[in-house]
């Protein structure tokens, strides 16, 4: 009935814009260096261990995503999922300090055919601040995301409290 595939179907995009009191080079480093990437990447309740990160055109990214919050470990076990999952991807569309695209192969979602997840990031200096636009192309796999989102709720509530419920930057989708 439908000749689109999980790999090629256009998907809705979520665009998130943030402005940080920092230099663009500092933001760039969080996306393109091992220590930078490990310091923030991954869903709440997970940490990542990077095995390969080559921020050049076509350069490899490989890491383990490891559940480390007790609630998340319990949630993964309850779902019958491993607490550690290897993820592979590559960088493309790089213009240092301006933009990058991260393609990740998502081949571990139960009930969903493997697909590529694409995240596009743009950076620009804004006075003494740095502006970042992240465009995420989510893939709707109801089984996984439904449960995952449910599992994240308690973590998110804590996070909201930590950040004082500050209003997020404008977001369009």
């Amino acid at each position, binding site marked *: *009935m439908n000749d689109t595939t999980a790999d090629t179907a256009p*998907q809705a995009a*979520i665009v*998130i814009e*943030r402005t940080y009191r*920092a230099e663009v080079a500092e933001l760039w480093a969080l996306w393109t260096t091992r220590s930078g990437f490990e310091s923030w990447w991954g869903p709440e309740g997970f940490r990542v261990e990077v095995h390969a990160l080559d921020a050049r055109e076509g350069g490899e990214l490989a890491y383990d995503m490891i559940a480390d919050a007790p609630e998340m470990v319990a949630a993964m076990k309850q779902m019958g999922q491993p607490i550690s999952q290897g993820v592979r991807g590559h960088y493309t569309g790089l213009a240092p300090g301006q933009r990058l695209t991260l393609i990740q192969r998502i081949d571990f979602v139960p009930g969903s055919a493997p697909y590529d997840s694409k995240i596009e990031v743009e950076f620009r200096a804004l006075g003494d601040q740095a502006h970042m636009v992240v465009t995420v192309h989510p893939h*709707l796999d109801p089984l996984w995301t439904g449960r995952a*989102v449910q599992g994240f709720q308690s973590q*998110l509530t804590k996070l909201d409290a930590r950040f004082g419920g500050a209003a997020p930057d404008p977001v369009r*989708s």
Partner: protein
Amino acid sequence: MHADPFETLADPTRRRIVEALRAGEQPVGEVVRHAGIHQSGVSRHLRILQEAGFVSVRPDGQRRLYALRAEPFRELEAWLADYRRLWDARLDRFGAALEDRRKDAGDKEPGP
């Protein structure tokens, strides 16, 4: 099992049909007129939209009337909102990581 809603709506013809149906319940002829697509194509796409739960159909004498169903759109909206929250949280951590690194760099700077 329903098709991936994103894939269902990824088709531009189906999006035109959905746009046309926003005007309200209507027979296939009206959908054809509003969407500007040949009837055979409209029927096929209406069936796909119906199977995916986006469109309902009911008989009205000799006609069949098509209408949008709100539920899948609400589900999509809720799903996207959840996804966005996850990314908001992730970028909060990005900001916290930036601050930590700035603090570390500041600590390492030589004093006067």
